[in-house]
């Protein structure tokens, strides 16, 4: 090893040290520590007791019905909000991909809700969804819809949350738009020459070309929506009748309201594993529908 190679090795280690330390102190360490918590009964004040698989048993044998409730709510939210968000984001991106004036303004307008702080967003939506004077019921009233009790009716809280999530598709929209704009015009021209109409060229050229972006948005969207928390915490506190008790809210309550650290850590691990399983499944299935240009040509 020459002197300069040795210097580069030293500097490489030094420069990346913050991240490596961070990964150990903020990820690896806490995750291992959290595994230890799983076998403990601990309220942070008295001495922790070793309880073996008790926390896991509590979760499996139905002694905590709220766990299943929160699992159901979280899956419900994910299965409806993620596909609808993808559709909404893609639809908006298609709109903004048209050659017309004023696109910058529309892009700005569609994006702005995504950057509003979550608390202000939640506080406004409490009013928009108000059964008596909320704007949403007023607008639905024009079409003859009877007032809906949204946040006060367990049947409508989850749809209300899905609806709200559609206001936050700005970033996904921009990623789609970037993808649409990078679809090569030559490919579309070639399809046109081969006699494809606009719809066919959209279906067979544009869609495959941006399928990696669909995939990216899908993976990120699922990871995010499984961890939904803030709106439920602020707007409904998990209610009514636990209809908005999502998994992270349940974890939060067990840990920081009831101080059952061991059980809360167990719940967190379960959610973590669920998310990882879904991520892996998506990557597995990706081969069947995601099209990568570089793979195809080789």
């Amino acid at each position, binding site marked *: 090893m020459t002197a300069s190679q040795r210097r*580069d*090795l030293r*500097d*490489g*280690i030094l*420069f*990346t040290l913050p*991240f*490596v330390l*961070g990964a150990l102190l*903020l*990820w690896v*360490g*806490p*995750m291992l*520590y*959290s595994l230890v*918590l799983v076998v403990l009964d601990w309220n*942070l004040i008295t001495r922790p007791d070793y309880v073996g698989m008790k926390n896991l048993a509590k979760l499996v044998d139905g002694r905590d019905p709220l766990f299943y409730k929160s699992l159901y709510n979280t899956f419900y939210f994910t299965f409806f909000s993620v596909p609808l968000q993808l559709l909404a984001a893609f639809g908006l991106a298609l*709109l903004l991909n048209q050659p*017309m004036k004023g696109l910058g*303004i529309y892009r*700005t*307008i569609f994006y*702005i*809700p*995504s*950057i*509003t*702080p979550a*608390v*202000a*967003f939640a*506080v*406004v939506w409490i*009013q*928009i969804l108000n059964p008596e*004077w909320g*704007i949403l019921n*007023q607008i639905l009233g024009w079409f003859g819809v009877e007032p809906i009790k949204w946040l006060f009716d367990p049947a409508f809280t989850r749809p209300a949350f899905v609806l709200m999530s559609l206001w*936050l598709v700005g*970033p996904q929209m*921009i*990623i789609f738009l*970037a993808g649409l704009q990078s679809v090569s015009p030559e490919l579309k021209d070639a399809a046109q020459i081969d006699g494809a109409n606009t719809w066919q060229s959209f279906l067979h050229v544009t869609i495959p070309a941006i399928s990696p972006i669909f995939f990216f948005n899908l*993976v*990120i969207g699922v990871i995010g929506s499984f*961890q939904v*928390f*803030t709106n439920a*915490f*602020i707007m409904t506190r998990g209610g009514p009748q636990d209809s908005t008790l999502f998994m*992270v809210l349940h*974890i939060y309550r067990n*840990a920081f309201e009831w101080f059952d*650290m061991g059980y809360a*850590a167990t719940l*967190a691990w379960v*959610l973590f594993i669920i*998310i990882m399983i879904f991520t892996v499944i998506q990557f597995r299935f990706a081969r069947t529908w995601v099209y990568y240009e570089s793979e195809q040509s080789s």
Partner: protein
Amino acid sequence: MRTARFANLPWHIICWVLGISFLLPLVWMFSTALKPPGLVFETPIRWIPENPRWYNYPQVFEKLPLFSRFFVNTFYVTLMGASGCVLSSLLVGFGLSRINWPGRNAVFGMLIATLMLPGVVTIIPLYIIFRYAQLVGTFYPLWIPAWFGYAFYIFLMRQYMMTLPRELDEAARMDGAANFRILWQIITPLCSPAIATIAIFAFLQHYNDFLGPLLYISANEMFTLQLGLLWFQGRFGNFWHLVMAASVMTIVPVLVLFFTAQKRFVQGIQLTGLAGR
């Protein structure tokens, strides 16, 4: 020309309707913030209040004098967090892109691995660790992690640095410059677009952070704006005109940032696919 304009008409109508829907919550907020208490729930809604009541804004501070303190707290945390993100991503990004050393690919692999890990599993152990360190109830847990670098920002910076020509450092290296000087004097000035993007997203991330302050801050005078707004809404929930005035004030800094740096927002999202919250 005329046919083209009419051909676009359906698109414009759709965009208009959607645009109004997307703006509705914000417009309601701004409008209600200027209404007198009695007219907040008037139906049908009067979007532009007849006599805008600007007094609502100072009244927020009269009801809750601490509200100005929340701004100071928030900007402190945001500044510390954002500067940590920028510095750490410069250092680590440089180590991962412009120094050739044996462990580089391993560290980069680690970075990619943490990119998609769901953070929910570390919330509880991190809280306990910070509690052992006697840091619960201080601002440190809110910004210390930023100084170790977030994977997204490092990734963004590394990608950007990879696009700069290699000759830049090689010439300086010939002259005997050390890596740190190359980073500081040659690479950093060229990275200003990436720095700006990271600074903006890190600002938003720390400014909008809710769970962090919720877990770590309990003293009222240490609340950030997010906690403060929630507290205000809890105490003065019947005064919706004031709650909305307070909400507007928490949003304005974000809107100002957005409109001054809109281009960077778009670039940043395209580079990383990173969401704004």
